[in-house]
């Protein structure tokens, strides 16, 4: 909890303190059309969503969708890779127009960002070492749990996840960790968990898809059923530009309706995550 108030909150404090971070209507759309480029924030380490292939080009579910949105706007796409803290802090100052990254709309984030469209519905699970005796999430009561800083899994562990998406069910917390350890990336948390059951961690809360990737890569881990919660992953833009928001919403709706999203999800995840769960 303390750690979470570190860099992300530090970065965020700038955003709120001096400027509300709101773009004036049409400003972002104007810039995109004037420069003929859509600058998109993605990551090189976001698993199947966005990473670099063998020739070090961007590929992944998020990347493909970003390219299609740019195509529907009739502009070129350009990728930048700010850290997640900077993206989630808002106040982008026009450095990038759109952030992918399957951001879950929460009340905190909605104060700084707009979420025009949901493009993925993903489960978040508790992951344990394969030698662990736990069989259901509630077995983790009082255990040491690792999370990535600034993501919904961390909010879940600290029991302060406030969903802000449409038709959201209130979150029911299935266990209260004895201690929450916060990591910069989920990979380091998995590295700690693989050392053995209870050596440094008893469990990690992470996106199920990333956990399954780790297991595929030979990590001695197991995903606890059922998933802790399902949350939507949205495209995020700077708050306040209604026209730009509508354009993106329309582009994503188009992809959803013609089945592009399902197809891409099957391609990158092997599961159709594009439908609401």
């Amino acid at each position, binding site marked *: 909890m303390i750690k979470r108030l570190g860099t992300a909150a*530090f*970065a965020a404090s*700038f*955003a709120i303190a001096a400027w509300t971070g709101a773009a004036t209507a049409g400003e972002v759309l104007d810039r995109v059309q004037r420069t003929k480029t859509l600058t998109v924030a993605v990551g090189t380490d976001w698993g199947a969503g966005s990473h670099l292939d063998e020739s*070090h080009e961007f590929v992944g579910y998020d990347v493909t969708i970003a390219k299609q949105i740019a195509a529907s706007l009739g502009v070129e796409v350009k990728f930048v*890779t*700010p*850290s997640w803290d*900077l993206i989630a802090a808002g106040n982008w*100052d026009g450095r990038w127009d759109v952030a992918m990254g399957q951001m879950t709309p929460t009340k905190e984030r909605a104060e700084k960002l707009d979420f025009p469209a949901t493009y993925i519905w993903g489960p978040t699970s508790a992951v344990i070492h394969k030698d662990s005796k736990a069989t259901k999430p509630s077995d983790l009561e009082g255990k040491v749990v690792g999370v990535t800083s600034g993501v919904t899994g961390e909010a879940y562990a600290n029991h302060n996840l406030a969903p802000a998406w449409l038709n959201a069910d209130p979150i029911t917390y299935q266990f209260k960790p004895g201690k929450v350890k916060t990591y910069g990336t989920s990979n380091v948390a998995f590295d700690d968990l693989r050392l053995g059951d209870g050596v440094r961690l008893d469990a990690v809360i992470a996106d199920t898809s990333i956990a399954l990737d780790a297991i595929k890569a030979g990590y001695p881990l197991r995903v606890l059923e059922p998933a802790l919660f399902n949350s939507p992953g949205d495209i995020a833009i700077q708050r306040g530009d209604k026209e730009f928001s509508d354009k993106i919403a329309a582009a994503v709706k188009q992809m959803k309706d013609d089945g592009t999203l399902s197809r891409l999800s099957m391609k990158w995840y092997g599961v159709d995550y594009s439908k609401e769960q």
Partner: protein
Amino acid sequence: MLYQDTVESEVLVHKPWFIAAMFAVVLAVFLMVNLTGTTFGELMRPVIGAPMQSGIYGRVAIAFVIAVMFCVNIVLIGFAPLKAQIGIVWIELLALFFSFFKAFNLSMPFIWENLPYLITQGVVTTIYVSAVSLICASLIAIIAAIAKLSSNGFAYAIANFYTSFFRGLPLLMQIYLIYLGLPQLGIVIDAVPSGILALSLCVGAYMTEIFRAGIQSIDRGQWEASRSMGFGFGLTMRRIILPQALPVIIPPMGNTFISMLKDSSLVSVLGVWELTFLARTLGQPTFHHMEMLITASLIYWIMSACLEVGQSRLERHFGRSKVR
């Protein structure tokens, strides 16, 4: 003695009490760690039988052999001339270091596949950011050092505030402040210039103090003498003060440059694709991150070693007057 003279004395590593002490220490250390399950245990198989079943006898035997090897090694090295000693110890430490990494079971094909990209993208960006910051920092430092030594209260106060502020804040905070804070004033700068600005200002503050200390290390008599001969400020600096101050300034400067090369890794939080950023992210999707981190560490080391060589060359050049 910490200076070289011509007095012949017995080598420390040949004194019996020293060898006995080293033997005892090494024996004690290796008795504490269990090496029976490692490659070394396998090598000892003819003596101790199956390594895992050898128990306490195996541990003692292994520790004993290592202690003997260590003592023989230092005694033999003691016979070699100085240059050879330095070379041998370096190579031995390096070999130990690599055998340590070998235990990580790294995927070499993955490293070879990504190494060219780490160099063409990562190293080039790192060197670019560091080199530009280095030049800017030096310029800032010269001006600020002169201001700090001047009798002008206004200049002194500004320079003093600057060094206090930028030495007192963590570099990461400075990078965030410049990247996120300046836009509040309407100045939006990109990630790379933000990083360069932060590095230049921070390193410049440290170098200000190095320059100031170097210049102040020269006796005031030198200033008085050159003034009495009618030298102006520029001529005094160029001909009298700097030639004497540089041998003092260069060792800490080299230190600062090396640490800056590595501090440039902090710019990776802004998404600049320098060495650390790529090292952190390239291996993530396939869970090969240890490979990339170790490769990047070695690259940093090689780059720092180049700077070390440059520093020792410069030191030798400017320290000519100290050699007999």
